[in-house]
């Protein structure tokens, strides 16, 4: 069984086809969410090595064990259409947005609804592409992909999916570089933004600061 077949075997057959109306869609979404959410909460997604594709044609981002190569292709393409490298400001590549999003998908403090929505949206986008054009998203040329993204933003579900990606792009553009994006403060420099001082250090980044504070309690308070 191939990796992609293994992954599909996790998903009930009734879930594999993109729904045609909103009611059916929400049911589809709920079923898929349950599976993914359970996996994320249990912390087991990272153990599903079969979620990775061995397709040599597409490079998997280092350390990624959440998305297969087809999903990565769709995500990368969507990010570059939503925030294109058009000579105005830093690119997705320069900001390290993709790796930032892969980190967010595993971050226990991130919005779990957004995490599952983002992943499910990738599969949804692919199925819509197949339904509308007869081709997988990855088989579309650039112009077709741009039309597909535009189409998605005109649907309720697709707009929310793209909106979540836009928010994460903005985080990669504007949050402190300590979180792995906004490389060399490229986003701040582009927008002529003056950051606040002090900026966070490793001990004060959001995952660590409460532990840092608790380690500093006086003995009488423990």
């Amino acid at each position, binding site marked *: 069984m191939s990796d992609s077949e293994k992954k599909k075997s996790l998903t009930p057959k009734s879930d594999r086809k993109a729904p045609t109306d909103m009611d059916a869609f929400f049911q589809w979404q709920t079923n898929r969410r349950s599976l993914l959410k359970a996996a994320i909460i249990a912390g087991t997604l990272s153990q599903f090595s079969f979620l990775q594709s061995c397709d040599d044609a597409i490079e998997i981002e280092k350390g990624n064990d959440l998305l297969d190569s087809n999903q990565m292709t769709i995500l990368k393409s969507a990010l570059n*259409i*939503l*925030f*294109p490298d*058009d000579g*105005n*400001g830093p690119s997705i590549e320069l900001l390290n947005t993709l790796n930032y999003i892969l980190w967010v998908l595993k971050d226990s*403090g*991130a*919005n779990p*609804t957004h995490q599952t929505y983002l992943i499910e949206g990738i599969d949804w986008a692919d199925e819509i592409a197949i339904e509308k054009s007869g081709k997988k998203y990855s088989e579309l040329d650039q112009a077709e992909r741009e039309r597909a*993204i535009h189409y998605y*933003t005109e649907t309720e579900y697709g*707009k929310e999916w*793209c*909106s979540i990606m*836009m*928010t994460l792009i*903005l*985080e990669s*553009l*504007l*949050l*402190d570089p*300590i*979180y792995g994006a906004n490389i060399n403060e490229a986003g*701040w420099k*582009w*927008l*002529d*933004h*003056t*950051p*606040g*001082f*002090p*900026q*966070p*250090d490793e001990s*004060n*980044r*959001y995952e660590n*600061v*409460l532990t*840092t*504070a*608790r380690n*500093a*309690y006086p003995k*009488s*308070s423990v």
Partner: protein
Amino acid sequence: MKYDVCIVGSGAGAGPVIYELANAGFKVLVLEKGPWLKTEHFSKDDMTATRRNIYAPALKDEFHVLETKDSEGNWNAVPTHESKRDFWNGSVVGGSSNFMSAYFHRLKPKDFRLQSEYGDIENANITDWPISYDELEPYYAKVESVVGVSGVVVPHKNLEPRSTPDYPFPPLVVNKIADWFVEAGAKKNYNIIPAARGIISVPKGDRRACYLSNYCGSFGCSSDGKGSARAALINDALKTGNVEIRPDSKVFHLETNEKNEIIKAHYYDLVGRKNSVEATLFVVAAQAIETARLLLLSKNPSCPNGLANNSGNVGKNLIFSAVATGSGLIEFNDFSAEKIAEINNPMTFVNRTLLDFYEIDEPESGKKIKGGTIDFLIEHSNPMPKAVRAKKDGERLVYGSEFKKNLLNYFTQKKRIRYEAFTDWIPNNDCFVTLSEEHKDKWGDPVAKVRLGYHDANKIPGEFLSDISKGVFEELGAKNISGGISTGPTVNLQAGGCRFGNDPKNSVLDKNCKSHEVSNLYITDGSFMPTGGSVPFTFTIYANAFRVADKIVERLKKA
């Protein structure tokens, strides 16, 4: 060990009590639900402060059930872990005062006798306070010097009487746009004046002055310039050796004896173990909703409806601040390069306010009604809220090169100015706290269920002040002006729920904020307020807590 006083909570309502009791030589134990972050743990990190909001509990662990009315008049109760409508402020030592913007306006004398001055409002529970402005005035002055308030007093028609001629700390440096507001106001015959802030402009003791980081509201202060309860009061109180802080300690029950006196506070520690402490007096200051919840959770044989609740008043008449907000854009292309050079810098402090309309004429009847306060601001510096706004054009999602162009233009070619107008939230029978019958927190205790009823009479002053503000913006030359009233509650401005008053039948606390029913219980957060005035509450909560602290010290000394 039996402490003299056990205090539940450590925010603005607790800080003055901790400070005064410790300095008077009494042994104080503070039980704070949240962690203890020191100054060095705060940074200007949007991820920590606003994206992940780690200064508040995770909603999966602790949440509220909020009841709002739908268009057909039905009340719908939804837990906040489902709605994602986070109703927490700051659960850390120092409470939400760590994250306040610190606009410090005093109440006016008429705020203490709203019913007498303006009469009753149908379906509202307006009442006078049992104390007057004159009784609180010395404590406003004390807050100004001890916590530290910066500003300059200028004459205006609603200036309250003062025992001191001016604020003890000089005004903070502001963006030059402050003058634009004053000039625009003057053209409309409005007297726009400097606003006082609970932020020190010169060093005080161990506290450094504000260093104008421009990341203020929602962020902890890295110089201790902001007058949080932690920086301004608790740190000094700790030096006496009379204060013990127990962070990560969630009080869930106050146990009483046969005389209906509290003998123990029971709490969970960080890992969920149950503990208890004994004290002579107990002070609850957990912010209005959680204070009411703790009393309702503390059912004892002598008070089966909850502590201090035999009158049935606990949780009733919860109030917020009724606000109107709006914004406009200063488009750089509309002004000369010289003018834009004046204001195009990272400085976001404006500190200008309009108090001309603290009392207004009701448009239809012409009778005097309460108006409110307008503060003028520049959009906060932290970039994420600014940027997220740019991705929507009405219902349309903006993306691609169009979005990038808009974003660059927004950050570099314009400045968003804002107004916040504060009016009285009219207390009513549909705004109260009870315990949820179905939802429990991570410890298994019922969460607070909050009905958020809004009185339509709030709209009149809100709309009036919003129109005034928009007029100033137009005069100033702003574009895309929008705004209006909000019928939703201000999450960060909560009060009421345990009113003080002279009649035990319709109040929970006496005029000194001691429970009518439980002789060793005081409540010193905003819960005591029967009406909130047309200003943010923090300054008044601080002042009243200093006042009550004096009463407690007096009592303990006699004992």
